[in-house]
């Protein structure tokens, strides 16, 4: 699919604005989990890694893609799980009272 650059830039800029608006008054309690959660989302690069490793082409490129998949998966799986582990501890306390 050929996409034109201006359209991609459009998407990039608009998404940035949404990002700025999304984080507003975060209580300090949530700074650590929010940081680790956002970190997990930045592992979205895994999608790019899948395409590089799975498409036809020069083997070197595919092995680089393979390394990218490993690193990105660590980022994604580890990031979401550890964030959940933290937030679960908060949640538990609130249910008890």
């Amino acid at each position, binding site marked *: *699919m050929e*996409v034109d650059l201006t359209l*991609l830039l459009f*998407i*990039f800029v608009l*998404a*940035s604005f949404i*990002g700025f608006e*999304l*984080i*507003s008054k*975060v209580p*300090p*309690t*949530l*700074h*650590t*989990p*929010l*940081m*680790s959660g*956002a*970190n*997990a*989302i*930045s*592992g979205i*690069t895994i*999608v*790019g*890694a*899948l395409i*590089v*490793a*799975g*498409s036809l082409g*020069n083997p*070197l*490129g*595919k*092995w*680089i*893609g393979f390394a990218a*998949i490993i*690193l*990105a*998966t*660590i*980022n994604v*799986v*580890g990031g979401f799980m*550890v964030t*959940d582990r*933290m937030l*679960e*501890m*908060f949640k538990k*306390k609130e249910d*008890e*009272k």
Partner: protein
Amino acid sequence: MSVFLPETILNWLPDTIQLFYLVATAFFIRGVKLLNSPGTARKGNQFAAIGMMIGVLVTLFDQNIVEFELIIGGIVIGGLIGLLLAKKVQMTSMPELVAVFNGFGGAASALVAWGELARKPEILSFDTTGLVSIGLSVFIGALTFTGSFIAFGKLSGFISGNAITFPGLNMINIGAMIATLGLIGYFAFDPTNSTLFWVILGISLLVGVTSVIPIGGADMPVVISLLNSYSGIAAAMAGFVLQNNLLIVSGALVGAAGLILTNIMCKAMNRSLSNVIFGSFGGVAGGSAGIRDGDKNVHETSAEDLAIQVAYASKVVIVPGYGLAVAQAQHIVKEVATKLESRGVQVKYGIHPVAGRMPGHMNVLLAEADVPYDLLKDMDEINPEFTTTDVVLIIGANDVVNPLAKTDPTGPIYGMPILNVDDAKRTVVFKRSLSVGYAGVDNPLFYAEKNQMFFGDAKKSLQALNEALNEV
């Protein structure tokens, strides 16, 4: 996976994939929004994870993807390592883990761009946009990678937490960054020159090191948050390389959100972002400055003395800080608090916004030790309560209770909001020595008439107090 689909669906496939990417994006946006408040945060994280799952699954149907050995292998290996790290990590090491994950994310984006470049048989098949995107993705991704690992090293003590710098280093860093951007432009005109690519990669890796190493260890959380924002931007750049909407949108989202979060953290520490990055301010807490004024007197206390004081108090506030996290004393704090509560003493915790090793870290640590969430009071909530408090136990905190923040307009911490512990009837500081905090200023609270010092390792002191309470 597209080979498994019937011909009729194949025609619709590219559009269908895009639509699912849109759904994944919606999950990300909703997820980050829900992460903003304590009640919904866990659901928010799960939303984001679902978005990620959708993105990955749908991508597997991309018609360009025809081989799955490397994909399956990579996901299994990466998934297992990620799982292990997330399950095993101690909550006190949270900042280090986030730094490591972040570094991997940045590296992955740089590798995606590099891999795409290496994979295509004909380098001239890239247009200028593609080449510039590859350059930027490698630059930001590689910088995030080495920067995050220096931050990790500083947090875990492999690298000195002190600001390592020399005059002009900031200028050299800025110069190197501008030079790299120039080289990326040149690379876009002369892509067959592979030396250029290696130089760009090399400088980027180096700049990551030299721009983080001059920053003090206590500022690392802000640095990680900023690098997290970079790793988002690197992912977005990789999206430009592959012309992939999902990468661009999610990358931009994280990039912007990370920047705002960085800013919020800076505000909590009463610092500006440029001051953190270029200020070379402070090292880790500790040092051995000792008493600088010989004639200042401190009152010392012992476990037995203190046990009697707190046992017969009606209200005790615990102020935990960085030192408590380092000594891993959060569980024993909870034990002491439980003992006091069983005697009818009211116990609360006053949490400064930057307590712990990163903003919000102390709340996580105390939650792990089963301290009920509603006893953790924010600074604004607890400050009015100090006037009715009998004893404040200040454990491993220093700068956040330093009255100089209010009284000395020339001091480096002037203006930082602090916990007004001196309103209480008595304060007790648990500390190894009288050394200065990370801001490098003396704390007059230590010498105050109604303050007592309990010298020693926070964990050992609390254990002694815990045992002494049995005797009272």
